[in-house]
């Protein structure tokens, strides 16, 4: 019984939150429209958190995802503003993400810098880079092709479900696609299993024939790619790019992964658990806003609820 609370404390907490909002906001909360809204609102955080899970599986961190998202968005916008087609901007942004991620991975894996320090350093570098590239300005208006910003505003019509005016947003679909890819990659391929092994014991994995260095580097590259994807999604959603817009993502993404980690037996990150973490953060934001809770009180509440959820599943768990 107690062990059930421990294992599923966070999930139970999540359900409790849903039920609470449903009772408080019977008309507007559990509606298809609102659910679709939430799914779109959290899609960027979700993509960052899912790909953050990849490095956290190895016991590492990537603090640079937020500024990488900004940098990628700005990079795409600059390409757009020079009248290149959309795919060129998207490709440039993704390339920036992959290269930045590889650089992180190189520092961590080949140079041997602790991930926390290495990515703290690159956080500053990417952020400065985003300011440099954009000249510190917000790039918007005619510079952003409407085809690009249109992506975030459209989706697949849900007429066939009888939900006439609604559509399933492309941003949501993209996030789900990333979720499935990361899930397969981490849990159903030798690649992912080896990342978990590295997280379990780096030295043992190495001696058991795992190519630890190259794997570790590649994982950071994937996280960088995810951050760049989120940066593009963000830029598309706000139809503009500025050098600070991603900075809120990092702490939230890490928080989501940690929230998820409370749900697995041995505290290892799993991407579906990360999804629950993201949902908790997203639903709290949405529901508390709808309930007109004061912004400051909302902040305190979100912090307290996160702590509570994690606490309920940590009580009595021994540190090994």
């Amino acid at each position, binding site marked *: 019984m107690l062990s059930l609370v421990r294992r599923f404390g966070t999930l139970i907490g999540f359900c409790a939150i849903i039920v609470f909002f449903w009772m408080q906001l019977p008309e507007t909360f559990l509606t298809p429209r609102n659910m679709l809204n939430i799914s779109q609102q959290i899609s960027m955080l979700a993509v960052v958190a899912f790909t953050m899970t990849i490095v956290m599986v190895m016991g590492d961190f990537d603090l640079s995802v937020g500024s990488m998202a900004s940098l990628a968005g700005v990079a795409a916008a600059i390409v757009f503003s020079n009248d290149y087609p959309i795919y060129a901007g998207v490709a440039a942004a993704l390339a920036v993400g992959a290269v930045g991620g590889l650089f992180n991975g190189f520092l961590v894996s080949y140079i041997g810098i602790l991930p926390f320090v290495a990515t703290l350093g690159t956080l500053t570098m990417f952020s400065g880079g985003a300011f440099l590239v954009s000249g510190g300005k917000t790039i918007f208006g005619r510079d952003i092709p409407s085809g690009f910003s249109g992506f975030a505003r459209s989706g697949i019509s849900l007429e066939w479900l009888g939900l006439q005016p609604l559509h399933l947003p492309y941003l949501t679909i993209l996030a789900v696609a990333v979720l499935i890819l990361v899930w397969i990659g981490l849990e159903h391929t*030798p690649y992912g*299993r080896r990342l978990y092994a590295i997280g379990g014991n780096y030295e043992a994995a190495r001696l058991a024939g795992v190519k630890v260095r190259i794997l570790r580097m590649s994982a950071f590259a994937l996280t960088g790619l995810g951050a760049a994807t989120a940066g593009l999604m963000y830029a598309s959603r706000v139809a503009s790019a500025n050098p600070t817009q991603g900075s809120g993502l990092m702490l939230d993404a890490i928080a989501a992964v940690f929230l998820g980690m409370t749900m697995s037996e041995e505290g290892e990150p799993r991407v579906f658990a990360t999804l629950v973490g993201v949902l908790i953060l997203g639903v709290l934001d949405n529901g508390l806003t709808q309930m007109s809770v004061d912004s400051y009180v909302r902040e305190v509440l979100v912090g307290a609820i996160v702590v509570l959820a994690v606490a309920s599943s940590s009580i009595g768990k021994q540190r090994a």
Partner: protein
Amino acid sequence: MTFLKLDHVTKRYGAAAALDNASLEIEAGEVHALMGENGAGKSTLIKVLAGVVRPDDCSLHIDGSKVPLEGPDDAARQGFRFIHQELNIVPHLSVAENIVMAQAYPRRFGLAVDWRRVHDKAGAALERLDVDHIDTRRKTARLSTGDQMLVKIAATLVSSDAHPARLYVMDEPTAALTGQECDKLFAVIEGLKQSGASVLFVSHRMNEVMQNCDRVTIYRDGRTIETSRIAETSRERIIEAMTGRAIRDTYPARTGTPAREMFCTVEKLRTKHVDGLEFSLKRGEILGVAGLAESGQSEVLHAFLGDEKPLSGAVTFQDKQTLPSAPSVAWKRRIAYVPRERRREGLMLRRSIVDNAVLPHLGQLGSARIFSSRRKERIHTGAIAERVRLKYSRLGQPCYQLSGGNQQKVVFSRALGKTPELLLLDEPTRGVDVGAKFDIYTLVRGLSAAGSTTIMTSSDLPELIGMCDRILVMRDHRQHAIVETDGLTPARLLQMFYE
């Protein structure tokens, strides 16, 4: 006269009982052996006695009166001193601090640490062990495993005025020590006994127990089976009480002569840590590597694993290949490795038995070259677990829940995942019980008969002589000699380390 009496000790983990109404009586001034198979509950009992594991039920009497046992403080108050099974040193603190840590630090002005006295105290403790080659100011991380164990032993010998030591509890202290270091330890134990203290001693080495202990208590599946005087019992009886079956405490016979076919030749090999290696290996041969502590035995294995780069000289395998360039390459070429320190180098403790066992073989156990298959992995692991007689409750169990010897078996089953071409074993039976040792010996012999070549180190010299065809003697990180084991005695082998 009975000094300590533990009764009704029960400790459950989930449905399984690690201890089930176990008991233990220790007399003043005796060396008492605690024996049992891997997973019998010895370490759990010791942790209960130390107050670091909370039992479901337990009563403790000291000198006939009941005393509480709520936490480490209670154990310290009774003058109990512990060496736990796993090497629990703090690597980045100095030797001196690791030694005095469990006691009160000497202070000046009641606040600041008096470093001179810390080092004096630690030095005195090491001196009791007759150890003079360890500088108390060194970082403990820089010491070899054997020296770290000596530090840990010294930590129990620190004098304390507040709570004079009455009972020393040692959970497999000799597993990481060489023969000479063991002898020093037994001399100290004899001294402790003379001074009136008692010693509770756990070991899987029958010789040690037979020669150095006064009485023995035997556990099986968390229950007390019997307590008897060593003088009034025999090896065979102890083993039978432990395992419930009759097992010979010897080495399985060779099942066939090694094939004539050459496996590899080593010419003037030099690496960063070893030099002058020059020998050849036949297919199916078992080569032992022996020497004093830190003479480079492990590094010979590391060279074959691709973890020590050759600086000069050459190794040629019969298929014209040279040494692997990295462990990942080695495993691909079916060179399997069982590392010396299972917890640090072998296991992902929080991951499951399956995950640990299949790690180097993930690629082969998958489907369509991309996806992995949990089902195949479980079947694979289940089959091997049976071969090594692993004691576990489910295949998904995380490894930290296994007893020390069973953890060793998990590491061993990893190496057996695919029939190896070359098997590198660094102290493969460390902490493994008698029965399981015999199982491992039989497995290695079987592999050898099927053509797998083996290189193994061990600080248990009879084991090396019993298992190997030839022994490579290392001295000062150089090849000193290579001898046939036919007719070799442990005493003669030991002599070769020094001469």
